[in-house]
């Protein structure tokens, strides 16, 4: 049975300092759900409240219909993977994995079978008799995962599990985590500050900042239609411009203007903030466009990144183009760029609201 998690009005206080005030989250059964945000945003705090290691100062936490606020962590049937793995240093790999099984009513015959099954699943069977200090970081990570999964938890909780690994291993391990989670179909809450990692593994992501949820949605929703300016800048790279909106006519500072036809409110006028991702610029021959000058370029194989500035306003912009066979545009070249109007996002002056149609946000707050 897949367990869903419902969090209503969660409040966390340290003394008089409120770090989370009234947060609402619903994690669907079997879903890979990620809490993403900069350090200090409250993501680990919330995870530890779900696990039961942090006290809950307000609100209700449910696993399905069961309220778990007062339940001991050991009774919540969770599997937890810690940032430092928290492998028991005095136990062998196999005994680490078997630890949780020994606390459950499982027969003596079944115990090594289950243990070995998960050691094999995580491809660490050959290390079963080793002590943890003889394992690499990636192997320790696998032990931590096997140990958390072998008890068949209702919910898998992971607190920045990949942050101690090197870049290559991180990419490899996130593949492993995603694959295992798919295979077992276990409800998973994952904490990370790495947006690329979050996009790679998650079904849905909750972006947090300063103890508040900014946006909950699929990686695609978050990237293409961010709910607010924070999400736009935190997920992926983007260029932000101050601009003027007059009903449907958007005018940039350098005078370039376009008509938009996907606004939520076609009567709105005033100052706005425009978000253009580097790949949403189109280099064109059309003179009726933004005039810019190339400052530098980076060739990255698939794409070429250009750093340029807008001729009239000196605003720096970053442009990504698919690499072409013809030459890279040299420094100092004057270029004309247009906007991919379907993809760009427009926010109100404060940056709190996306003015473009199509934002999907599961955040109920």
């Amino acid at each position, binding site marked *: 049975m897949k367990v869903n998690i419902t969090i209503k009005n969660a409040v966390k206080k*340290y003394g008089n300092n409120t770090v989370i005030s009234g947060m609402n989250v619903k994690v669907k059964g079997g879903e890979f759900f990620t809490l993403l945000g900069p350090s200090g945003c409250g993501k680990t705090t919330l995870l530890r409240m779900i*696990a*039961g*290691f942090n*006290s809950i100062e307000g609100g209700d936490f449910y696993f399905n219909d069961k309220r778990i606020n007062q339940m*001991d*962590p*050991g*009774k*919540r*049937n*969770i*599997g*937890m993977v*810690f*940032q*430092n793995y*928290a*492998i*028991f*240093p*005095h136990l062998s790999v196999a005994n680490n994995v078997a*630890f*949780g099984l020994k*606390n*459950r009513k499982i027969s003596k015959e079944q115990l090594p079978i289950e243990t070995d099954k998960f050691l094999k699943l995580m491809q660490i069977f050959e290390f079963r008799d080793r*002590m943890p*200090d003889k394992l690499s970081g990636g192997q320790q990570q696998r032990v931590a995962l096997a*140990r*958390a999964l072998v*008890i068949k938890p209702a919910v898998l*909780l992971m607190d920045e599990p990949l942050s101690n690994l090197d870049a290559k291993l991180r990419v490899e391990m996130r593949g492993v985590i995603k694959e295992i989670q798919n295979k077992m179909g276990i409800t998973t809450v994952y904490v990370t500050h790495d947006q690329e990692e979050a996009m790679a593994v998650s079904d849905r992501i909750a972006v947090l900042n300063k103890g508040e949820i900014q946006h909950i949605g699929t990686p695609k929703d978050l990237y293409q239609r961010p709910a607010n300016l924070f999400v736009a800048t935190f997920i992926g790279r983007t260029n932000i411009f101050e601009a003027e909106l007059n009903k449907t006519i958007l005018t940039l500072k350098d005078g370039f203007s376009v008509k938009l036809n996907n606004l939520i409110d076609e009567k709105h006028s005033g100052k706005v903030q425009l978000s253009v991702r580097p790949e949403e610029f189109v280099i064109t021959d059309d003179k009726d466009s933004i005039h810019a000058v190339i400052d530098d370029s980076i060739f990255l194989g698939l794409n070429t990144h250009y750093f340029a500035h807008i001729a009239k306003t000196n605003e720096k912009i970053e442009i990504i183009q698919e690499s072409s066979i013809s030459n890279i545009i040299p420094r100092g070249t004057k270029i004309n760029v247009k906007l991919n109007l379907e993809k760009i996002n427009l926010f109100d002056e404060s940056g709190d609201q996306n003015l473009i149609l199509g934002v999907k946000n599961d955040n109920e707050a």
Partner: protein
Amino acid sequence: MITKHKYDVWGTVTILITLFYVAFLVVPLGMIFYQAFFDKETHMLTMDYFIKFFSNKYYFMTLLNSLAVSLSVTVLAVLIGVPLGYFFAVYRIRGKRFMEVLILIASVSAPFIGAYSWILLFGRSGVVTAALSTIGIEMPSIYGFWGIVLVLTFRMFPLIFLYVQGAMKNVDESLLEASESLGRTKIQTFFTVVLPLITPTILAGSLLVFMRAMSDFGTPMLIGGGYRTFPALIYTQFMSEISGDDGFASTIAIIAIILMAIIFMVQRLAANKFSFKMNALHPVTISEHTNWSKVLVHIFTYVTIAIAIIPQVYVIYTSFKNTNGLIFVDGYSFMSYTQAFDKLGSSIWNTIRIPAIALLVIVLFSILIAYVTVRRRTKATGALDIVSMIPYIVPGSVIGIAFSITYRNPWFTVPGLALMLIALVLRRMQYTIRSSVATLSQIPISTEEAAISLGASKFKTFFSVTMPMMSAGIISGAILSWISLITELSSSIILYTTKTQTLTVAIYSQVLRGNYGIAAALSTILTVLTIISILISMKVSDGRKKEKN
């Protein structure tokens, strides 16, 4: 962070341990305070004793003397111990393992045995003194200030050495490489990088040396001559039946405690100021050095260790000499041993029995105290943490006197064995508590959370995860506790009864009676006991290392 906890078994543990400290530390020290401030007959508040102490130069000087001795010993021990610890980390020293064992032996011997051996060698009728005077050289007197400083310095520098050696293991090699890559020489690197990094450790070691030197009782009694320090004064004031005065002894004890508390706090402040977080991924390794520096380092090492170990060796040597009454005569035999066993055989058994019981209690208490003070930080456990440090600043003789006054009164008497045991537990628990606390603080709490998240009960988590992970710290602390237990003199000399006489007490009283033969035999037995303890502990720690590999 102080968080609220539900009252559970740990609450009960905290209360029980607190009660223990109240009964055997707070109340006895309170009695000392009472005796010092209240007149015996009238029970009125009086400052007479304090006036007597500070107005009489004879008494007052003992305090200054103690300070002078302790400061000199601390400075000299640092000057010897720090370079030695550094050399052991970065030089390939021939016979390193053996040298380490010798240093350990020197560090765990009872200080007064060193004193009495130096007397045998350099005293008025000492062997070396006599030999030198036949060729016309007059030795400066070994008795007095310099004698005490000599004995204590060579007894205490190993402590600094061991602290520094430990700290060097936490200094990352890359820090030294970084410094040298920026153009510093090895010597400059030592003074500008290594020394600042190990300063907190040196400060901690210095405090230990200072406190030990300050409260050492046997050495000044034997080698002090007319140079009187205050532990000796407290003892004579309390023990002497004719001129003695409990109240006055208590007053001196109070002054000593206050003084040591101040020094303790100053050290704490200094240590906080200089503390660093270090965690060496690649500990300092042996590096290349010029030949002449290697030679100098070897000379320094061998000479220092030789001076430190000579007293032990000489005592062992004399234990096999024939004696006639009180004097050594030509020829060698087991005479002294036979006499020692006949007269004082039970003291050997006592030296194993009593410390063994004390150690059991110490280990149990330390684990519990470490757990509640690290994992259950509340105001109550914080207070417990502080209280458990108090014996650190209370000289053993003061504990002995406080126990005597409190628990040997006209109304009831606690049996001598129990008092001795409790005094030992109180005084020697520090090592095990400190190392257990240190180990536990380094264990990330997530490891225990992992166990709990996997369904283990709090109880099971404690026994199957927390305790095994702490075991290295517990064992290393327990070994230190054990060795200091079997060499304890200052509290036992006051609390012992004929049935609970230990080796140190027996040796001390034999030395005072001039029975050097028996004293040497007993000292040798004690040394053998300590060496066996050290070897076992090394086996254990080696075994642990191998297990890991």
